[in-house]
């Protein structure tokens, strides 16, 4: 059984620029007051968001 990677956001690093929401091709990241929110069942793990993030707050585990 393969397990897919989980997207983790380091809220201390995140500057809430929401650029990740802008670049996600499948709307798997959404705005919320606390910062971007991951919608797991839409995610294709393309990694565009983690590449984009200016502060590397997004990582995969």
């Amino acid at each position, binding site marked *: 059984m393969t397990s897919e990677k989980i997207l983790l956001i380091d809220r201390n690093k995140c500057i809430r*620029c*929401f*650029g990740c929401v802008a*670049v996600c091709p499948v709307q798997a990241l959404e*705005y919320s007051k606390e910062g971007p929110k991951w919608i797991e069942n839409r995610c294709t793990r393309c990694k565009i968001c983690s*590449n*984009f*993030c*200016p*502060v590397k707050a997004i990582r995969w585990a």
Partner: protein
Amino acid sequence: MIKIDKEVDVIIVGCGPAGSWCAKRLAEYGVNVIVLDRNEEIGTPVRCGEGFSKTIEERLNLKLPSFCIAQKIDGAFIYAPNGKFVEVKGFGYVLERKMFDKWLAIEASNAGAKILAKSYVYDLIKEKGKIAGIKANIVGEDMEIKGKIIVGADGVESMIAKKAGINTTCSPFLVDSGFEYELANIKLRDEKKLEIFLGNEVAPRGYVWIFPKGKNRANVGVGIVGSNEKGARYYLDKFIASREELRKGSIIEVKGGAIPVGGFLRDMVKENVLLVGDAAHQVNPIHGGGIGEAMTASEIAAKVIKKALDKNDSKVLKEYNTLWYKSRGNTLKKIEKLREIVEKLSDDQLNKLAEALEGEDIYDITHGNYLKLVKTLLKLGFKLAGF
């Protein structure tokens, strides 16, 4: 409980420069307009280098109050990778966006627009297959507001675009990842000059900027291609560490954002929804400035919206596309072509280019005149694909 009109002519989502300016014009035309901004305070957080050209002031007949201005600017130094620089003359300002955005919102309010901060729009209302309004949490309470026309002025990650079905997702190659510190207690070469640093090691497909906000204070930031894995912060921290005059500075603000650098939309209108500003990627692809583009587009949008309301026909909104392309879009597309050329240059080629160009040539290039650049590149013996 806040008492507001539950039915208006126009709902504008986002109260940055695009939203405010559109609202001001519409209110001046007698339109019943409401503006909703998700932040507790209009103008914050700042996702901007805060540069602003005097040509915008002139184009829009703006009278910028001094409290919006952090620093008056009369030119720029542009540095090639080898440190050689070209001086460009040009007038403008580095703004205090928090004050500027608030000022615009106040102007729009005084003209008759209703603005609500801490009001997050999370969905569109659909009735009989048509978009009839928005659902929002308005200063803590869930409410529905009906509107004839909806304006998405809600930034590069536009929720309104997504909900309306206008695809505005930025390809990672058509967006720059931006990160910036506002630094205090630093030494500046000349507080009246912007400084721009180019180089593939300094800022891949972008630049480092120093935008002074006073004698010893500046926005120091970087924009890099959105697909770069290292991240903007890596490049900025490296740059600052290498400069003694910046290293000891205090960080008084940390800012960042996604900067569209092209990828203009052929159709910025869907039914009765219209996009303006960063939501419509209306940003200069070479220097990343968007405040002026947002406000210019808002002028056009407001006129078209008024016409559509008068004729009670949302199909009129499509004229916004034609008018915007004629006014700005065609020029910005030329500038995008320029970006595509310049971003492929190696550091060595950038160095040679800096030797061959003069200040006014660079000014022309950022305004879409690429004849001189192409001539110079060909003269220098560069091979240019697509020309």
